[in-house]
């Protein structure tokens, strides 16, 4: 029976978030908090593997108390258990400190029930770094497999995972020892509309909550702001592309003009099977 842990995060919905024009930072209060979309795919993949091989899916998150909502979302998707570490000591963590705290929590979960596989989303939509997953793998000294777009097989008896990694032009087939850590692409699966019994279970569910004192042998100097060597020197919005040509007139005229331009610049396009 597999024990799969998905590491997840509650993030502000960056599709609707407003930026502070002075500091160029996100105004987190301006957007609703959601489960990081990549993480939903991570949990879904874990649930699919559980259905295929049998076992348990746990989810783990670090965050402020309202992040319980993100865990409940994972229960809706089909996770069995949820763990949350929450404490002021964790606040202000960069990816290094975050991966340290999560690793400590994973060690504790592993003591309850040994972990065979860890699945993370490719990255969070608020940080966009994709570093926490590999950071956890490094600390646990297990193989990190990034950009996973398909899980072909998990063989617990023989102790390996067979997966496809997304490359720029094609994919790579990798076999790795278990336990290992996967960080997954969105295309790995589609998260379906959750069944009603899961929704009801999620509404009732209360996750296990740990503070820093619950994590054995934790080195406090590696947590939160203190444990975060990252310095954000400057933040600026992406520059808007300049120049270009605006077409005017009736839609039909605009289309005709656009076609002329595109035909004149056909070297920009690679069209399969068309000889010129």
């Amino acid at each position: 029976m597999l024990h799969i842990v998905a590491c997840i995060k509650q993030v502000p919905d960056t599709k609707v978030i407003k930026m502070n024009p002075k500091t160029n930072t996100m105004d987190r209060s301006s957007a609703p908090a959601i489960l990081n979309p990549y993480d939903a795919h991570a949990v879904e993949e874990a649930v699919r593997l559980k259905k295929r091989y049998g076992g348990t899916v746990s989810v783990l998150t670090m965050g402020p108390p309202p992040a319980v909502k993100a865990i409940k979302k994972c229960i809706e998707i089909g996770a069995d258990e949820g763990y949350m570490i929450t404490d002021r000591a964790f606040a202000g963590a960069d990816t290094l400190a975050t991966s340290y705290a999560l690793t400590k929590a994973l060690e504790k979960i592993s003591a309850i029930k040994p972990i065979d596989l860890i699945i993370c989303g490719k990255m969070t939509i608020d940080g966009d770094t994709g570093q926490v997953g590999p950071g956890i793998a490094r600390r646990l000294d297990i193989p990190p497999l990034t950009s996973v777009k398909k899980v072909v097989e998990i063989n617990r008896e023989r102790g390996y995972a067979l997966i496809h990694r997304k490359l720029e032009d094609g994919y790579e087939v990798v076999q790795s020892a278990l336990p290992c850590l996967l960080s997954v692409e969105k295309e790995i699966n589609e998260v379906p509309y959750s069944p009603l019994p899961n929704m009801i279970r999620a509404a009732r569910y209360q996750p296990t909550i740990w503070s820093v004192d619950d994590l054995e042998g934790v080195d406090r100097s590696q947590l939160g702001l203190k444990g975060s060597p990252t310095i954000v020197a400057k933040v600026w919005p992406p520059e808007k592309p300049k120049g270009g040509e605006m077409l005017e007139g009736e839609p039909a005229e605009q289309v005709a003009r656009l076609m002329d331009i595109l035909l004149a610049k056909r070297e920009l396009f690679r069209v399969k099977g068309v000889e010129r």
Partner: protein
Amino acid sequence: MAEKFDVIVVGAGPAGTSCAYTLAKAGVNVLLLERGEYPGSKNVMGGVLYRKMMEDIIPGFYKEAPVERPIVEQRFMMLDKESALTFSYKGLEWGREPYNNFTVLRAKFDQWFADQAVRQGALLVNETVVLECIVEDGRVVGVRTDRPDGDVYADVVVLADGVNSLLAKSLGFHKEFRPDEVALAVMEVLKLDKKTIEDRFNLEADQGCTIEIFGDATKGILGTAWLYTNKDSLNIGVGTMLSGLIKHKLKPYELLEYVKQHPLIRPYIQGSEQQEYLAHLIPEGGYRSMPKIVGSGVLVVGDAAQLVNAIHREGSNMAMTSGVLAAEAILAAKEAGDFSEKALDSYRVNLMNSFVGQDLQKYKDATHHFEKFPHYFEEYIPLLTRAASQMFTVDGSSKWDKQKKIWRDLGSPGKKFKIARDIYNAWKVMK
């Protein structure tokens, strides 16, 4: 095996949440189903929440709930093209406990209210649409949702699914509502600096004002426009009977744009920034449009039961009271172990004896009367503003002459008789 609850409440608006809260507090196992992403995400009202009925459920709620401003002034504006006759009551007693009413933003308030029901033990499931009631042997025994494995059962199902309740309709409790039984309201939330709001509406910090606007705001169609103050935004909206919009071939957002551009309204909202646009139907058919509200294993509450007093812009308070009365009837039925129509009928009896039923009966003909005779709005409001202009313009003619002129302007003796008759008729439907 599908799960069974004591009660399923469909819809987490004021009626449904009041019902679920009351039941959960009494220890009943209740499932509250909401189709929106969260309670309030799909709910719309002008913005006034009455204190009394809410406080009957949660005493002192305003100390914690996200309310915007307590209302200390209510203005009523009879609007013509470029004039208005305004009547207002301002009372500072409304600005302190126990308060009269508050402006609220539903997206925030409904969420808070549903959270309180959850704290009492109600189970809230969002983003789930109820497709139909499950009926066995003529008795409602559960609901079918749009989710996989989506059936769930209960002793009683409470339909709080809002105006045009499709669930009550599919049970045969009512027919499709006619365009003269529902109003269409459109509304915008306009962001405006707190201080500017207080200056423009002559308010102290954390006091609020409401303006109801009749007449030209709806281009003479039966309905009202409104302008309410929130903390740092305004609610501006207009609601008219659907039949009027159809008859005059008007689009609701055009009407709202007309209100916003009106020279007497524009100064209030100048410099504000549009934050939200909302639209919703309001059941305004009143007493005569009320559907059957009790069946075997099922009760109908709130908008779904057409519980709106259009004349006094009351609805959410009636919804709350209906939710509580439904809960009480269910508790009594549970005690007796009988969920038949007869056992649950105490809900209907108590509702009709409460202020909800009484007020609906009082105004049972009002909306229909004004709907039928649009000249109240089209003709009499301009008549009033013209008379006021005549009387208060100092132009050297004597006040006696002015009164004579106003009297002459009312028209021929036949016309005057018609006005007198209309005033009598209006009094009759409102008394």
